[in-house]
């Protein structure tokens, strides 16, 4: 992802960096074709590594990703963690997976279904085989398929041998056995030695897809530098796997995926949560403010707390509070003190925070609330993704409680959206809710690294002049009230959750004043619309069908729209970052299409809002399986709608 069509441009986001199109050249060497083997080109390959949680599949996947990025491919990744931390080894509940889509074309998603499945044990096979494309490649570790593991996975016979797998190219390799063999002389325990087998799998795959393994060798050196025997062991096993691929007669074909056309720049692979953390940090730095994160651990948001906790030298305070309420309250207290307060959580935690968020609405202080959505309700599916907290964000507080709501579309877009959330919070003196989700949080893609100097300005003004000061005297353009740091002489004042009198901020129970202030808060939200850039439309500006999305469905929708457009259909896409307020030009755009389709990983929340706001007879496509849309699901729905 983040490839040929610059994402910033396609989403109509404020562009952070001058993007120049150019043929791509990557600083890495190509690998020579192996002798005696056929070389075949592929545009895109989707590979899934699956094994027991203890098998190191995440690490294997990430290293393969790095190799692919360095080979110049566009990429998209998605890990799939088991819900239990330490499920018993060999069981279905303990299967951990990592999927990577690497391509010479632009990548929008981690891929619908894998072309290649690496299965280290029967449980991994059972959980994943149903997703493998017909005719796909299965690479299995023979040693992992012993009687005990087969039984734990619920297989009566060995599926690798009994022909039950059907239309699959099966490659069974003694990965554990060969791993132990090459490590024989190292005097490692059997347990430690067999743990290296994931590098054998990585070696085989690296050869199969012509990936250079030098970077992984270097990485092994760094990662295990404290235990030189592991450096030696893992490096040996990686090379052994690679050479096995090269020499075995099992593989007649070696594949190649050419570099993609990618906009020039310096790139790095980031997950959504890392990008979001960097966005918050960059914005705070741009504003010249310390950042205070008040948070309570919850999947899939915790990594933001972990990430920001490392940035102490940037003046970042991270406070692991006693609960979510204290998380948001401490952040608001920090904002009152003149730093930028942030709180991060997922749906259940946001539910706890809402009263304090409403306090932020009343006291009109900047605050950023990040909701990394997961499957619900209640504890729901903590490790699975969903985008069903839009109502909660827009409507989920008592009374009329307007605040801006933004949603990130891709892992790297989490950076831009977090940055924008901070900017709006400060400019308009308001809490802002940022919606991400588990899919974006853990998914990764190449990020075109911006230059800090070129990011949009975030001016901050702390009032210090006492003359003419009133706590609720608003800026005429933004309707923001002044921000005053406690410690400023002569500006002592009180704020709070009781209704405020216009201008003075004194407690007021006057009926007319309450109505006036309710309107003022609504108008302030409406004023945010002046910052929303024109909505960019992928495809024609009018046509038969418009797909409207928000959040992490971006990639699947974009790929689906491209697919049906390639068949000559008059279909376009818009993807909303600003969900409250909605873009001013949205109503007009909706009316230019015969049909409006809104795919969502919920029961139709944006759909309902669009229908209510614009009286448009939009239709939904709803998937509530804790999993992202497949491109084919959206493309299929579009085609059926066009057929009438």
């Amino acid at each position: 992802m983040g490839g040929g069509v610059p994402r910033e441009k396609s989403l109509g986001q404020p562009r952070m960096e001058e993007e120049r199109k150019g043929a791509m050249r990557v600083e890495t060497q190509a690998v020579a074709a192996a002798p005696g083997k056929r070389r075949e080109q592929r545009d895109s390959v989707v590979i899934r590594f699956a094994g027991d949680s203890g098998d190191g599949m995440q690490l294997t996947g990430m290293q393969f990703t790095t190799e692919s990025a360095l080979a110049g491919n566009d990429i998209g990744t998605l890990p799939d963690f088991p819900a239990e931390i330490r499920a018993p080894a060999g069981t279905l509940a303990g299967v951990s997976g990592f999927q990577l889509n690497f391509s010479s074309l632009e990548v929008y998603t981690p891929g619908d279904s894998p072309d290649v499945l690496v299965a280290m044990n029967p449980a991994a096979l059972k959980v994943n085989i149903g997703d493998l494309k017909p005719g796909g490649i299965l690479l299995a570790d023979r040693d992992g398929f012993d009687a005990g593991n087969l039984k734990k996975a619920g297989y009566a016979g060995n599926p690798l041998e009994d022909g039950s797998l059907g239309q699959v190219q099966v490659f069974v390799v003694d990965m554990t056995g060969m791993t132990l063999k090459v490590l024989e002389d190292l005097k490692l325990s059997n347990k430690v030695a067999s743990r290296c087998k994931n590098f054998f799998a990585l070696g085989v795959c690296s050869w199969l897809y012509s990936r250079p393994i030098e970077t992984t060798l270097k990485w092994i050196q760094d990662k295990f530098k404290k235990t030189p025997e592991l450096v030696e062991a893992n490096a040996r096993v990686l090379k052994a796997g690679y050479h096995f691929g090269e020499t075995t007669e099992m593989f007649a074909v070696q594949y190649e995926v050419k570099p993609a056309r990618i906009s020039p720049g310096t790139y790095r692979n980031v997950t959504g949560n890392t990008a979001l953390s960097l966005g918050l940090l960059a914005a705070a730095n741009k504003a010249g403010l310390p950042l205070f994160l008040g948070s309570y651990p919850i999947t899939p948001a915790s990594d933001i707390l972990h990430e920001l906790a490392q940035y102490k030298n940037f003046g970042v305070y991270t406070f692991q509070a006693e609960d979510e309420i204290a998380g948001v309250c401490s952040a608001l207290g920090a904002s009152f003190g003149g730093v930028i307060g942030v709180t991060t959580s997922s749906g259940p935690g946001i539910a706890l925070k809402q009263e304090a968020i409403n306090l932020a609405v009343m006291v009109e202080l900047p605050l950023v609330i990040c909701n990394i959505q997961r499957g619900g309700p209640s504890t729901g599916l903590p490790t699975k993704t969903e985008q069903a907290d839009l109502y909660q964000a827009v409507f989920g507080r008592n009374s009329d409680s307007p605040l801006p709501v933004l949603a990130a579309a891709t892992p790297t877009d989490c950076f831009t959206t977090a940055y924008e959330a901070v900017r709006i919070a400060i400019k308009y003196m308001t809490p802002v809710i940022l919606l991400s989700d588990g899919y974006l949080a853990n998914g990764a893609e190449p990020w075109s690294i911006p230059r800090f100097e070129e990011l949009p300005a975030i001016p901050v003004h702390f009032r210090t002049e006492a003359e003419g000061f009133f706590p609720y005297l608003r800026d005429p353009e933004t309707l923001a009230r002044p921000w005053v740091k406690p410690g400023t002489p002569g500006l002592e004042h009180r704020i709070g959750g009781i209704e405020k009198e216009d201008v003075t901020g004194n407690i007021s129970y006057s009926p007319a004043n309450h109505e006036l202030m309710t309107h003022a808060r609504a108008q302030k939200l409406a004023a945010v619309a002046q910052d929303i850039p024109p909505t960019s439309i992928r495809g024609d500006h009018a046509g038969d069908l418009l797909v409207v999305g928000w959040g992490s469905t971006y990639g699947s929708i974009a790929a689906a729209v491209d697919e049906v457009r390639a068949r000559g259909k008059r279909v376009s896409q818009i993807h909303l970052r600003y969900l409250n307020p909605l873009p001013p030009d949205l109503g007009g755009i909706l009316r230019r299409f015969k049909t409006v389709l809104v795919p969502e990983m919920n029961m139709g929340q944006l759909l309902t809002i669009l229908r209510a706001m614009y009286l448009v007879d939009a239709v939904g496509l709803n998937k509530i399986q804790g999993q992202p849309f497949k491109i084919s699901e959206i493309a299929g729905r579009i085609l059926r709608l066009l057929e009438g």
Partner: protein
Amino acid sequence: MSDAAVATAAPKLTRKDFVSDQDVRWCPGCGDYSILAQVQKVMPELGLSREKFVFISGIGCSSRFPYYMNTYGFHSIHGRAAAVASGLKISRPDLSVWVVTGDGDGLSIGGNHLIHALRRNVGLKILLFNNRIYGLTKGQYSPTSELGKVTKSTPAGSVDYPFNPIAVAMGVDATFVARGVDVEAKLLQDLLRRAYEHPGGTFIEILQNCNIFNDGVWETLTDKATKADTVLLLEHGKPLIFGKNRDKGIKLGSDSRLQVVTLGNGTQEGDILVHDETNRPLAYMLAHLETPTPIGVFHATIRPTYEEAMSKQLEAARQKLGPGDVNALFKRGETWVVR
């Protein structure tokens, strides 16, 4: 760092400087008036300029307090003052941050935040106005109401056992634990000064009369006729003696329990325990003493504050890694260049 240590040469301030222009709306006769008066008396004497003070409260009659102080103030939501104040104090250790809460606000809905703020030793000066009732919501029993309390919500008497606020604070290792009384002006002023000077978090339970919904709840402790025999003033380094004739005292019995004894008849002053604020086990025992009821400072000890420890970590990171370079951070990990 104590708030006293951050005091700069401030201009001379008077009580009036701390009185806001808002009308005070407590019921006439409410104990809160006296507390407000003592705070407004002490603040100008502390040597810290007015703009450095922040009062943060939750919800309740008591929590109206910040509106009446001409300082920075934040009237937050029910129970959450300690959490809001923690965020402020951690990121702005230069401010003197005071929390005003009630027995319902601080011990019922906000109990969690109170105990965590105290155990962390965030440098908050917490004043808990204990009237053993929900005043603002018109008279339901509170978590400090005595067992069997008859209120609108407990017509047959409450069946839940009450909190002992001092024991709660001791139980979470608060570094400064004291009890004052709304009408004991001098003691309250002393406690406020002590709290200000204490380098760290402080907890003062203030026994407060709600003359509308719980009138006379502390009467035996405040009535001139009885108080000498019902109240024990804790003074560091002084024997635990009380009584109209100063003839009663507290002794450690051979069963390791506190005993109330009368002087004379073989008991001399030398047998009476001498109060030592730094003696944690003694403070625990005194926390559970009901007759007489101890007032004053139960315990004071010094432990690094949360904000200090946090600032040190930030400083250490800056020393080690230099001030943050955002561009360098962006490029952390494996990067590649596309031309």
